[in-house]
């Protein structure tokens, strides 16, 4: 690779099916405590990949190992097949990151902060800095001191420094922390846009399940330093065989008798059973024809939260 020409990430063709990150048996021990236990994980290219776990489960530690801030006790992390331990300076060129909060030099202006980080990576032109400033929408305030910025603006400045060199992989640690709902929404849309338009793979950690559900293509769930599951978001909605469904009716007892064949039961005054689409429609007809009033039919879809609680055994804070 010739470091002088273009920023590192720009030279890489968006080769899709090769994983951007490969973790192999990553383990971190501090003293006798095992913080991360034998984590093996692949992050496919071009996705928004969620890294989900309760507080203290090892998300930040894993991210710190990915960017070389912490040493691995065992195992190996590859970024575009460059080892983070063996070829750090090559591997890190593909990475843009915000680890925890986007802490900037408060006594410098936003622009000076960007200039500072641009000087550390070859091939970032003044035009590119301006472009990124526009992209994150800081144009009007970029020459103000960072200490006058709101948290949302700092977050955007953080994103700017992370994508300035067109990385293949953008790592964000709890990016929605401290943002208001509008800020969260903005960030979410922005990350999706980055993944879609610039082909950047986004690796984002969070303990907010609802967030991950809206943001990510795939989510890895970690607990107590162990990888519990990796699942694709939206998958469960496609393969609905049987859905749990609730009927709100005026005479639950009468309805129950009508639908015993479907295995219906009463739950909190609501009639509920598991069935496919046709069965639900048929059940409705049966009830209506019997002269019962149906006030509402509600499908119960499992959210990520339910799945999360299922796989982690309901344990939220470790």
């Amino acid at each position, binding site marked *: 690779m010739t*470091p*002088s020409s273009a920023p*590192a990430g720009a030279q890489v063709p968006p080769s899709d099916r090769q994983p951007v990150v490969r973790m192999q048996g990553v383990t971190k021990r501090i003293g006798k405590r095992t913080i991360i236990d034998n984590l093996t994980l692949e992050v496919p290219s071009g996705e928004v990949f969620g890294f989900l776990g309760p507080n203290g489960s090892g998300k930040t530690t894993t991210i*710190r190992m990915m*960017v*070389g*801030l*912490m*040493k691995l006790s065992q195992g190996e992390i590859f970024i575009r097949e460059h080892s983070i331990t063996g070829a*750090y*300076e*090559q591997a*890190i*060129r593909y*990475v843009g*990151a*915000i*680890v*925890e*909060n*986007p*802490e*900037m*030099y*408060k*006594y*410098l202006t936003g622009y*000076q902060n960007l*200039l*500072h*980080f641009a*000087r*550390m*990576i*070859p091939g970032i032109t003044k035009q590119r800095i301006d472009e990124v400033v526009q992209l994150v929408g800081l144009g009007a305030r970029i020459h103000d001191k960072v200490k006058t910025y709101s948290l949302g603006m700092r977050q955007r400045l953080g994103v700017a*420094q992370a994508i300035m060199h067109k990385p293949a992989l953008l790592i964000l640690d709890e990016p929605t922390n401290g943002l208001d709902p509008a800020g969260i929404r903005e960030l979410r849309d922005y990350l999706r846009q980055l993944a879609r338009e610039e082909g950047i793979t986004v690796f984002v950690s969070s303990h907010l399940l609802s967030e991950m559900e809206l943001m990510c293509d795939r989510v890895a769930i970690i607990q107590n330093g162990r990888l519990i599951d990796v699942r694709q978001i939206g998958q469960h909605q496609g393969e609905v065989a049987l859905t749990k469904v609730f009927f709100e009716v005026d005479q639950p007892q009468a309805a129950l008798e009508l639908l015993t064949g479907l295995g219906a039961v009463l739950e909190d005054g609501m009639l509920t059973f598991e069935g496919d689409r046709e069965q639900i429609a048929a059940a409705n007809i049966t009830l209506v024809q019997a002269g019962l009033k149906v006030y509402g039919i509600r499908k119960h879809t499992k959210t990520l939260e339910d799945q999360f609680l299922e796989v982690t055994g309901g344990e939220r804070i470790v």
Partner: protein
Amino acid sequence: MFDFLQLVNNENMKIYRRPRTWIMLGILLLMSLVIPLMATLYGGGTSVSMWDLLLVQSAIGIMLATVYAVVIAAEMVAGEFSTGTIKLLMIRPWSRSKILLSKYVALLLFALFFVAVTFGWNILTSMLFFGYTDEPMGASGIHPLNYWMQYYLYEFLTLVITVTLAFLISTVFRSSGLAIGLSLFLLLGGGIVTGIIRMLDYAWVDYLLFANMALTDYLNSDVSTITGKPIGFTLAVLGGYYVAFLAITWSVFNKRDIA
């Protein structure tokens, strides 16, 4: 390899874009004026040459420059940790050693800048207050400007040792307060401690860092007033400490996890 100087540039930006650096410089310049000003106002007409008061003036100036350099050194690494910016700084295609080196280089440049300004300012103001003379000095017959250049060089060397120690403490303990406190204790209290230990009359006392920080002794004498050793001995001891300080600083910085 792309430009290492850009990293130094960054560190310079972080020093000189802060108002405090220029406030420190302003105070330094003002304080150095006090001595010649007082001599002129309250000297009662005694005629003084421009070189007569330079020792006191320089002592003040260099003391301040040292304190400021120690403050900068202490902040340089510990400050990045306390603000959390270290995390963004380290995740770049540079090894930790080189990033630390860029900080150290910027620190030495800062120290050099302040000592050079102190030197130039003191000579200039003395000249303006008392007029220029260039009588050779004392028995050696050395040109005064020459003498003072040597004086500042020696003082600069000891200053480098002090700020390197501050840099070490800043890196190892990640606490700027501790770095400032310990380094200034060494600077101000070192002489007293050495004096006390010297009364015990052990040979190893001569190898203490405190006992070897008075390099300017050698301007007037072949042996140190503290240890009684020649300059080669003192320089060797200082060199040993210097290398050890750097080795500890770099190995700790390279090994540590950044949390």
